[in-house]
Each structure stands twice: as structure tokens, then as C-alpha cells.
């Protein structure tokens, strides 16, 4: 069985590495494949973008570097992307965390700063002087007198929903809004806050969330 195969799928070129073969064998075959190609190709051609598919194997950084070296040596292809059928545990954990829904039922008291990975459904209360921060969205059902920070530290897609009329500040990503400066009567339990195209915290209704910020699923590359 060949350990390196060049394929064209859709409008992209793929370099598939058979995960049943040894890595050293793969390097040898990659070299000979590229060498053959080089001979049949005209000299002054632009480099073609290519996707490296490692199939059921994850390459270590130094292995990837070796492959990259071979590819750039022949200057036929330009490595654009590396894909595989498998993910590392670390990456899976990261992705799961991103969509995880934390549920907070405690009272967060003055001076406390509590961080959550992923999204947060806030059922408890946040007292004045306390700060809660989530990487993702914050859905407020409890009473907030303190500061709520969604998309901490730099996730511009995060949103805040719910009644924040009594809160001191709402923050999304790197933006801060002082609630006392907002149009108070407009703030209800149906309020939605997000970052708009001008990178300003904007206000709307939850019912419009789907149009404003379509929630992205975890996508398989």
C-alpha cells in the first residue's frame, strides 16, 4: 500500500498520508513523489496550495516541520492546511468547554471575581462589587447588581441576555457599558446585548438573536 497519495477533491489538492505506514517511509515516498512531479512540470509555475490530510494520525510539531521542509524544497506546493480524522484530547476538551453551559446558583458577593469556561446560565445573584466572567455567553435569570462580563477576554461573538437593569456594568469582550448611562425603561428580561459591526455594545430583543448573531455549531473541518 502506498503511504503518500496526491488527490484532487472539489477545487482543492490533498496530500494524504496513510496512517498505517511508518513516518520515515512516508518521508521517503513523499520525496520521490515530488521529484517525479517536478520532472513533468514546467519550470516557472506558481506554487499550488495544498491540504495535508494525516487521516487517523496526529503529527507532532517536529514531524510536521519535516514534511513542510520537503514540500517547500520542491516548491511545487504550498502547505495551506493540515486536517485529520482525529482530534487531540486537548482540542476536544477546548471545543466541549466552548459550548458547555455552566449553571450558577450561588450568591456571588462583593469583591469576588468568578470565571467560567464556556457559557453561563446565571440563576443566582451577583452582589454589587462582584464580577462574573464567562468566555462565552451569559444568560441572566437571577439578580445582578455587580458586573457581568461575557466573552472574556476577547470573544466578540459573545452575548448577554436578560434583565440587567440593576447591574453596575455589562462588559462584552473588551467593551464596557455603564448601565446607569443606558435607557433604563428599555431594559427588560427580554433584552439582548451584543457587539455590532462598529464594535460597540448594542441592544436588541432576544427574539432577534437568531438574525443578529446566528449561533455557530462546532464545525468539523
Amino acid at each position, binding site marked *: 500500500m502506498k503511504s503518500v497519495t496526491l488527490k484532487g477533491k472539489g477545487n482543492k489538492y490533498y496530500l494524504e498520508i496513510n496512517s498505517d505506514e511508518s513516518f520515515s517511509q512516508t518521508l521517503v515516498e513523499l520525496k520521490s513523489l515530488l521529484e517525479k512531479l517536478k520532472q513533468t512540470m514546467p519550470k516557472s509555475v506558481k506554487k499550488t496550495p495544498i491540504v495535508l490530510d494525516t487521516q487517523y494520525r496526529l503529527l507532532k510539531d517536529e514531524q510536521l516541520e519535516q514534511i513542510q521542509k520537503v514540500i517547500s524544497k520542491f516548491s511545487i506546493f504550498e502547505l495551506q492546511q493540515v486536517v485529520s480524522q482525529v482530534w487531540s484530547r486537548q482540542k476536544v476538551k477546548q471545543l466541549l468547554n466552548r459550548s458547555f453551559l455552566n449553571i450558577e446558583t450561588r450568591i456571588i458577593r*462583593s*469583591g469576588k471575581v468568578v470565571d467560567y469556561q464556556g457559557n453561563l446560565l446565571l440563576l443566582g445573584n451577583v452582589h*454589587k*462589587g462582584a464580577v462574573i466572567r464567562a468566555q462565552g455567553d451569559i444568560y441572566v435569570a437571577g439578580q445582578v447588581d455587580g458586573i457581568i462580563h461575557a466573552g472574556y477576554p476577547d470573544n466578540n461573538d459573545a452575548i448577554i441576555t436578560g434583565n440587567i437593569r440593576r447591574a453596575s*456594568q455589562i462588559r462584552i469582550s473588551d467593551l*464596557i457599558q*455603564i448601565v446607569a448611562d443606558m435607557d433604563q425603561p428599555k431594559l427588560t428580561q427580554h433584552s439582548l446585548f451584543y457587539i455590532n459591526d462598529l464594535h460597540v455594545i448594542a441592544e436588541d430583543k432576544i427574539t432577534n438573536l437568531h438574525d443578529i448573531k446566528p449561533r455557530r455549531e462546532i464545525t468539523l473541518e
Partner: protein
Amino acid sequence: MGTSIVVTSGKGGVGKSTTAANLGLALVHAGKRICVVDLDVGLRNLDTILGLSDRVIYDVIDVIENRVDVFQALVQHPNYEDRLYLLAASQSATQGNLNIERMREIITDLKTAFDFVILDCPAGIERGFKAAIAVADSALIVTTPEIAAVSDADRVVGLLEDAHLPYGMHLVINRVRVQMLQNGKSMDIQNIVDRLSVPLIGVIVDDDEVIATSNKGQSVVANQSDNPAAVGYFHLAHRILGENIPLNEIDMEKSVDKKNGFWYRMFHH
């Protein structure tokens, strides 16, 4: 160049923060530009008394640790154009984070931009107190007519004498209950002044409205200028500005020692 005033007491709960806030407001009413700095790191409340707690974004520790410029960290009071600013205390840090060298630089910067920089000192005589007196040009010692408060004030006076502040120190007697004074149950004002031998510059009577307004994030000085406590704060502010207002809040004869008071020298020469 402005002047920095530390409001200190030793004992907690005598009204340092309330005095700092109301004095700041009274000086603003007198046309001055004021910055109040809360040094009660860990248990801040000057922001709440001034009704600014919702607006705090950065604090004094962010400035000390160079995460943000001092003027960017100031919270502007929405009711006083650009005449009243607050540098809030941090809630998460401890007094150990108060680097005295950085504090000096920060207060010097603030003094170039404001007429007065009022420092609200934490209770106790630990790091926060030391940092505050290290950067102060003058001190207001706040005490109440209680023996415990006066003894702590005496200890603080001793420490302040060693610090040799350029403009010295003055005494404010807070929460004076006129009725108790009249029937002889309270410590006599004259006795307190004699015991501490610090020139008296203000007497503030105890009034329910001080706490009532503060609970709403307002102050007597801003809301009820004819309130007896508010009058006390206004007189205190005007004495600091060098005006000769007799200390008659409760019909006393004693007045500020004019020749030794720095306020007098500062504004009358």
C-alpha cells in the same frame, strides 16, 4: 500645583470616608477641582458614598502596577462637569500592593491637574496608612467624642509628627451629639483638643441625614446644604481655603490657630 490632604483616624468607623467625600464635594461647591483617592484597598467604599460605584472600571492598583494611566483610571462624577474625580480602591488586592514609590509619582501627577487631592486612608496604622502619609502634604485627623477614638487619634498624631508633613495636621471632630454635650455625658470638645494638642479645623454634628443620604449614594453637602452637618463640612472646606470662619458650630470660642495653620499661610501671603 495642588495640595494633597490625607483623611485619617486610626480607629475605624469614625467617618473618614464620609468626611473625605463631603469635604471633596464642599470644595467642589467652592469652585475647586478635586480628586479623591480611595486607599482602603480590599474594602473600598468611597465609590459607593459618592454614588460612583457603578462607574468604576480601573482602580489604584491597576495604576500602581502600570496596567493603565492614572488619568484613564479616574472616574468622573456626572453631576459636577469635570471638577470631581475619584480614583477607586481595588477590591481584590491587599494593602501590600501599595507601592510607595509609585504612589508618590501618581499623587504628584494628580496634584498637577487638581487643586486638592484628598486621600481616604484605611483604618489602622499598617501599610495603607504609611503609604497615605508618605504622599500627603497635610493631614486631617478625624475623631469622634469617644475615648477609644481619641486614644487612637493620639497614636496617629504621634506617627504624623514623625512624618513631618509639609503643611502639618488639623483636627476634625465628627459625630458630635449636641444633646450629650449639653448634659455633660459626652467628651468635651475643648478636652479633646487639649489632649491631642492639634489645631481644630472642623466640628461636624451627628445628623441622621448624613447616613440617610449616603445610603442613596448622595451626600448632605450636595442635597441638603442647610443641614447642620453639611454646614460643618462647608465651614471645614472654607477654613481649608483660608477663610476665617469662627468655630461656632456648637457655640464654641476656640478657633483655628491662625498663625500656625498652613491653610492660612498658603492663601493669605
